[in-house]
């Protein structure tokens, strides 16, 4: 059977590094899932608009543009993998030219 999904390539797009062997396992699982979900193609959707969310009632999605959250800077920096004073610290990355 021709493979529908190139797992290694899509994992790259998704920015997920895979262990050796993981790619082959996922290949089988994802082929199976795609085969399963393919059945939605059988539904007659001519003239049907897509539904993007489950909400039926009117919502008031707008609010005043005011700051409501307290200052969470210390908290945010406190849970960072590494910090440097008031900055997030990242590893030194030097890319090849």
């Amino acid at each position, binding site marked *: 059977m021709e493979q529908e999904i190139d797992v290694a390539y*899509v994992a790259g797009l998704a920015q997920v590094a895979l262990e050796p062997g993981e790619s082959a396992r996922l290949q089988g699982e994802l082929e199976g899932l795609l085969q399963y979900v*393919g059945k939605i193609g059988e539904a007659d959707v001519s003239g049907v608009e897509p539904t993007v969310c489950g909400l039926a009632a009117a919502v008031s999605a707008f609010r005043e543009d005011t700051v409501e959250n307290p200052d969470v800077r210390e908290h945010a920096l406190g849970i960072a993998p590494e910090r440097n004073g008031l900055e997030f610290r990242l590893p030194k*990355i030097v890319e090849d030219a």
Partner: protein
Amino acid sequence: MDIAGMTLAVQDVVSIAGQPLWGGLKMLEGYVAPFDATVVARLRRAGAVVVRGGALPAVGVDSGGETRRSAAAGGCVGLRPSYGRVSRYGVAAYVSSMDAAGPLAGTVEEAATLLRVMAGHDPLDGMTADVPVPDYCAALRGGFKGLRVGVPREYFAKGADDVRQAIEGCARAGAEVVEVSLPHTGYAAAAYCVIAAAEASTNLARFDGVRYGHRTKEQVGSVADLFAKSRGEGFGDKVKRDIILGTYLLSKACYEKYFVQAQKVRTLIRRDFEEAFKVCDVMMMPVSAGGMGNEELGIGNLEEGEFTAPASLAGICALAMPCGAGGLQVLGPAFGEGNVLRAAYAYEQEVRA
């Protein structure tokens, strides 16, 4: 019933200030929630003591039926509120168009009490609806008299004799039972899988090891490498599979074929319910089809959601409670929690007792 003084556990995807989130996920190691989720704040204001949950918390999040299936299996009552009924502020986003926080309780009355506290408009969740919150506890006492209970035939193809008998009991107790049809039910689990993977892959894109969560200790050669290694190490197998599947389904080649198609199927499923609720107030059906799929492919899990995914896709409310092998599910239209709780209470008190 009053929740003041009660100790209530919430699932680990609901933020409690000062506590970790998403316990099982290595990607969020070291993360501490800076604030309470709105549902937590509301429960606290009502006098409850809120703690991190065990196996069966009092507040759970139902995307495709998780709360309902664990309730039915665990012998309690689980309610998935209508989309927009309960705030998701502070709830870890997975399937944003379907995530719904709701009560898990020992009895229908407890579920009604909890929902009344949790529900309502929240300026911090733009998708909560400004719809008044009725007194769900008062609604419980209505009984079956004058209540039309729809029985969708597609849910009974594999038997479900226990649920059928339960519905017969409801009819004897005064419910008007009508047969209805939800013809697109068979597509629901597949449509849910497509939309859930797509939304999960998008939601989980924020975890990159830069500002919080797991960061790889390995040498990295580029920023993309830092993201990819951190994510590869931090996410578990199932999450990685969802992310890769979702990324693929949202790619140019698949977008129309799978993602938009699933959203159109979602419309068909929503319309099925709109039609059916013209002739009934609530519906009763099993929670699970009971069929076993291929666990290795994860398809077993998908088919497990065959009977719970439709309500999620339609954004309507659904309650699950124990009944025989498969569990009883009671569905209502959007913001129809009152009648759902009323029917479930009447079943619990008059039929099952």
